[in-house]
């Protein structure tokens, strides 16, 4: 829907709010200017990024503070496009900003553009079209289209969504569930949060379509308590969807019933693991379940459950609708490379000059993201390491920056894409400390159910401490390598199973941080097993 010239957008996104967006919005409102609290465009280094509707389109001003608002107002907001060059932080038409214009926004198409509180605005920007079309199809046809789109789980594992749904659909049960994993606990990831804060109806629509496809009448969204802004946005959107007949009984006159509930986590990282999340939803300690049975057969309360990540579910309305005039599933499958189809939402985080959201088809290189989009480090020092895919992902050095970012290429390189977060570190980082932190984090957050994770992580911290202190470095590195293998192969879930990934990648690429002798030009470390001589202390 078209807004009147002079309309002001100030993001209500948590990141924008964290650097003063609320104060900016209040300053405009105090001057009698109506403000729309949109999501963030994802150019987070420019927040608070204020947009004004002008004759030339929506023009932006970056890094606005509340005390600059009177100056912005003084010469008339509606003519901002004509005097832009005199305004500090003026960005021109935001859609034409090269950082944004060069992206392929699919999952983030509406984020920052629409008013997240307005169901009308959502519909005006293509909302509910996917649901309407899905309701006109049989559940089996919906599953077939999602399968054909090539959509894979965006939570990290990359499992084909259509295959999972087919299992749930064909499972015999009088009660089935859809569960959305919104426990986005990985450092360096915030795409789930931003899509929900900026475009919450998409998740509601995606889950309703999923309910129709798998035969579930109840959905649960498990959101982490560290995301209060997202929780509020979601609750508001669900209430509005009920009021307008998009949730509840007989949705859009189709006869479909679907109820959606928000459940809040309580500060346990492990609850981002799907089976722990299910236990937590059931009101229990978030302890990992042994598989099989898989949740698609016996999930929430023992019933068949489609468990999907936020971004996976948010891709569904577009896949069921249309993109550029063609069937959504077909357009989606045309993007990406190999078996990694569609787009990936990358999150540029940590020590970056330009942090934020970059959505591109799979296959873009790490170099393009780190050097071009992120613009190197915020501190201006050289990049030393990038952790890809969250706390359980590998650390990669600049020599590996030509790797194409898709599931298969990263797996071949001993890394993983995870949820698409990239955390950049400059040359002051001590990689032995980061390896230690990975083990320490695992020790703190382990659910305790399996021994390799619970005990292994504690032993890992102790062993790395001895290495850092210079005690029997070679022997202790051997021991650490052996421990990592035990954790990788013996842990019940990805927490213990993948904690070795950051640890071993740090040792592989930055051995000099683990063995002070190396920095002085000694021979490289040997991590081969040594049976003779004294054992590590």
């Amino acid at each position, binding site marked *: 829907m078209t807004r009147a010239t002079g309309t002001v957008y100030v993001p209500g996104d*948590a*990141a924008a*709010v*964290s*650097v003063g967006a609320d104060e900016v919005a209040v300053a405009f409102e105090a001057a009698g200017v109506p403000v729309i609290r949109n999501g963030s465009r994802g150019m*987070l*280094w420019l*927040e608070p990024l204020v947009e004004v509707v002008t004759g030339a389109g929506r023009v932006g001003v970056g890094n606005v503070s509340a005390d600059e608002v009177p100056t912005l107002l003084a010469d008339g907001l509606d003519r901002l496009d004509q005097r832009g060059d005199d305004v500090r932080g003026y960005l021109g038409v935001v859609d034409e900003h090269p950082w944004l214009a060069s992206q392929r926004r699919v999952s983030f198409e509406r984020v920052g553009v629409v008013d997240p509180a307005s169901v009308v605005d959502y519909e005006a920007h293509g909302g509910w079209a996917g649901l309407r079309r899905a309701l006109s199809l049989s559940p089996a046809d919906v599953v077939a289209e999602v399968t054909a789109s090539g959509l894979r789980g965006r939570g990290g594992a990359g499992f084909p969504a259509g295959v999972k749904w087919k299992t749930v659909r064909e499972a015999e049960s009088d009660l089935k569930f859809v569960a959305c994993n919104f426990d*986005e*606990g*990985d*450092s*360096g*990831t*915030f795409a*789930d*949060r931003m899509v929900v804060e900026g475009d919450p109806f998409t998740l509601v629509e995606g889950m309703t379509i999923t309910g129709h496809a798998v035969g579930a009448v109840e959905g649960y969204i498990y959101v982490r*308590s*560290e*995301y*209060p*802004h997202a929780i509020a946005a979601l609750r508001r959107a669900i209430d509005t969807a009920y009021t307008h007949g998009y949730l509840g009984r007989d949705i859009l006159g189709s006869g479909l019933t679907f109820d959606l*509930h928000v*459940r*809040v*986590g*309580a*500060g*346990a*990282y492990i609850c981002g693991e799907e089976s722990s999340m299910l236990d*937590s*939803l*059931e*009101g*229990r*300690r*978030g302890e990992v379940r042994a598989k099989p049975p898989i949740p698609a057969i016996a999930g929430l*309360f023992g019933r068949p459950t489609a468990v999907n990540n936020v971004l996976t579910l948010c891709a569904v309305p577009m896949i069921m609708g249309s993109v550029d005039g063609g069937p959504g599933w077909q357009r989606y499958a045309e993007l990406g490379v190999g078996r990694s189809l569609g787009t990936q939402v990358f*999150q*540029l*985080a*940590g*020590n*970056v000059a330009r*942090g*934020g959201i970059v959505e591109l088809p799979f296959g873009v290189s790490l170099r393009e993201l780190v050097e071009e989009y992120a613009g190197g480090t*915020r*501190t201006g020092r050289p990049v030393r390491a990038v*952790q890809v895919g969250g*706390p359980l992902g590998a650390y990669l050095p600049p020599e590996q920056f030509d790797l194409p970012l898709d599931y298969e290429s990263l797996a071949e390189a001993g890394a993983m894409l995870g949820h698409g*977060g990239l*955390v*950049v*570190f*400059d040359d002051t*980082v001590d990689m032995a400390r*980061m390896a230690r*932190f990975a083990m320490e*984090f695992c020790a703190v*957050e382990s659910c305790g159910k399996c021994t390799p994770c619970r005990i292994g992580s504690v032993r890992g911290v102790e062993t790395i401490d001895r290495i850092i202190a210079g005690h029997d470095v070679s022997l202790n590195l051997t021991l650490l390598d052996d421990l990592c293998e035990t954790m990788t192969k013996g842990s019940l879930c990805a927490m213990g199973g993948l904690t070795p990934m950051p640890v071993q990648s740090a040792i592989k690429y930055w051995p000099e941080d683990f063995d002070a002798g190396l920095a002085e030009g000694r021979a490289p470390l040997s991590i081969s097993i040594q049976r003779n001589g004294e054992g590590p202390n």
Partner: protein
Amino acid sequence: MTITPATDRAALVRAIAVQHLDERGALMPVLHDVNEELGHIERQDVEAIADVLNLSIADVHGVISFYKDFRTAPAAAHTVALCRAEACQAVGAEALYADTVQRAGELGDDVEVDEIFCFGNCALGPSGMIDGRLYGRLSTDRVTELTRGWQP
């Protein structure tokens, strides 16, 4: 916080639990509400919740002790929760945490410093929540400025 007589508190806890009785897996929502409305969850609250939800005291206690959000003692008057995860570490979160713990020590007993692993504000770190408000691009000076009114 206000001191309520034990009987009133028990009635309140029961009333909260009853509100959630028809929900599936009601324990987490009940614990969140008690934690939020009464500030923390006491031993006697555990008994009342277990009774209303038809769970064992051990079950309820086990859940409370698993999740760090559920408090068993009242919070300090002021709280600072700083992110210490990787993305914030990359921009100096460790030094900020150390400085803030020291600053809190100077401010006396009524300030609590907690560590959090990720607010999802990873492009604008270091991040922290100060008295329930999220802040990005924090620095030692900024924390000092934001806590200026908290003199002992």
